[in-house]
């Protein structure tokens, strides 16, 4: 065994050196290992690019939300009727309560920011199940790896899996017009809307699937629906999200058990 291990490690070392320093190619065995190392690293790089793309989407979404909020504040401040309606007495009352409100705002902002932080940490667009579904569809003859003659749903799922959410949304919408009851399409429409920051339509698509407890991706739907409610972030929505996260957290075999438990610890 020792001899075999030493031989392997010597070939491995040469392959690694060749990979890192671009040394001339060695034996066929070294080349083989070099190719494997290259492939493993490329797989990793692909994953990094995918994460970067998703982070970029989320970053854009946050920027849009910020700019919308800014616009809303500016519009409110410019409203003449509002300024007429502000009596001096109210101003005094507001000033008197300023300390209290400042304190309240601060704690609500802090809790908001911890939820945002947890969301950023635990939420990510699905990049596994979508490819499993595509594989299954391909095996059943619905999807084609070459891209020729593939149906709209396959195309939409590929867009989603590659984080092209705007394209996924329009393709899914086309598909749902023709097949409004397709559960996979409904689920990914919900996930796409969530990713694009359209929480109400996301909830609308995911809720019927959540209510159908025999749906094969029920746990996944529960997790993403909880994420929608987290983003809505009002009292009632947070309660709903908590309930769903508790259910996921209690189910140790759930693939979302760890994330749900982590998220709940932030929500308290």
């Amino acid at each position, binding site marked *: *065994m020792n001899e*075999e*291990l030493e031989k*392997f*490690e010597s070939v*491995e070392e040469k392959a*690694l050196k060749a*990979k890192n320093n*671009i040394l001339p190619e060695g034996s066929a065995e070294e080349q*083989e*290992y070099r*190719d*494997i*190392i*290259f*492939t*493993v*690293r*490329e*797989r*990793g*790089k692909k*994953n*990094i*690019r995918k*994460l*970067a*793309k*998703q*982070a*970029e989407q*989320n*970053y854009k979404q*946050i920027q849009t939300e910020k700019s919308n909020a800014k616009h809303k504040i500016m519009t409110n401040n410019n409203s003449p009727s509002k300024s007429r309606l502000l009596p001096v007495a109210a101003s005094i009352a507001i000033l008197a309560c300023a300390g209290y409100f400042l304190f309240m705002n601060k704690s609500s902002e802090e809790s908001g*920011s911890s939820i945002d*932080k947890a969301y*950023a*940490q635990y*939420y*990510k667009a699905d990049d596994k199940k979508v490819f499993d579904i595509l594989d299954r569809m391909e095996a059943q003859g619905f999807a084609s790896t070459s891209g020729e003659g593939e149906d709209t749903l396959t195309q939409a799922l590929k867009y989603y899996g590659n984080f092209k959410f705007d394209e996924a949304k329009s393709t899914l919408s086309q598909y749902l017009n023709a097949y409004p009851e397709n559960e996979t399409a409904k689920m990914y429409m919900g996930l796409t809307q969530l990713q694009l920051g359209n929480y109400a339509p996301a909830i609308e698509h995911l809720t019927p699937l959540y209510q159908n407890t025999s749906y094969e991706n029920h746990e996944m739907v529960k997790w993403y629906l909880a994420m929608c409610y987290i983003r809505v972030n009002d009292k009632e929505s947070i309660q709903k999200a908590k309930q769903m996260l508790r259910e996921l957290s209690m189910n140790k075999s759930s693939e979302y058990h760890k994330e749900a438990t982590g998220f709940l610890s932030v929500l308290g």
Partner: protein
Amino acid sequence: MSESYKDTEIIEGLREEKLWAFEAVYQSSFKMVRNNILKNSGTEEDARDVFQDMFIILIDKIRSKTLHLTPQSKLSTFVFGITRNLWLNRIRKAGKLTIVNQEDNTVDYVAEDEFELLQKRIDEDRFELIEKAFLTMGEECRKIIEMFYYQKMKTKDIATLLSYTEGFIRIKKMRCMKELKKKIINR
């Protein structure tokens, strides 16, 4: 670097490929990098591409422990430096611009040239074949191979993480690689 995370936290997050760490880097540095690329004859698309590629180099530097933060050099400084080099390199290639004496840029240039050379050598079919064979392996084998060859972890650290002895990991890795080779040949 970010309002809510410390540089050291982000570095750990990137090492583990956590989405929130990528987002933190976007929040703190994307605007600055984008503006710089736009000022230097690049487009929005170029800025996005370069920023994505930057993560590959940054994570590689973190894993190979060649990223040294000091109070003067924050993570955002590295991000800016890497994207600047990547962008200059692209301009150089596109316009045959020769950049002399780029000091520590050398590593990044080599990384890209190396990538191209290997990319040429391994045609796509072969890449796909190896990848498919890799995906049929057991989870433990995949983990060990990825930790060692991609995450550049030491055998000792892999052993600690997976609760095995170092010797076991060495043998297991060898067996996994041989199994993978067999799978590739049989495909």
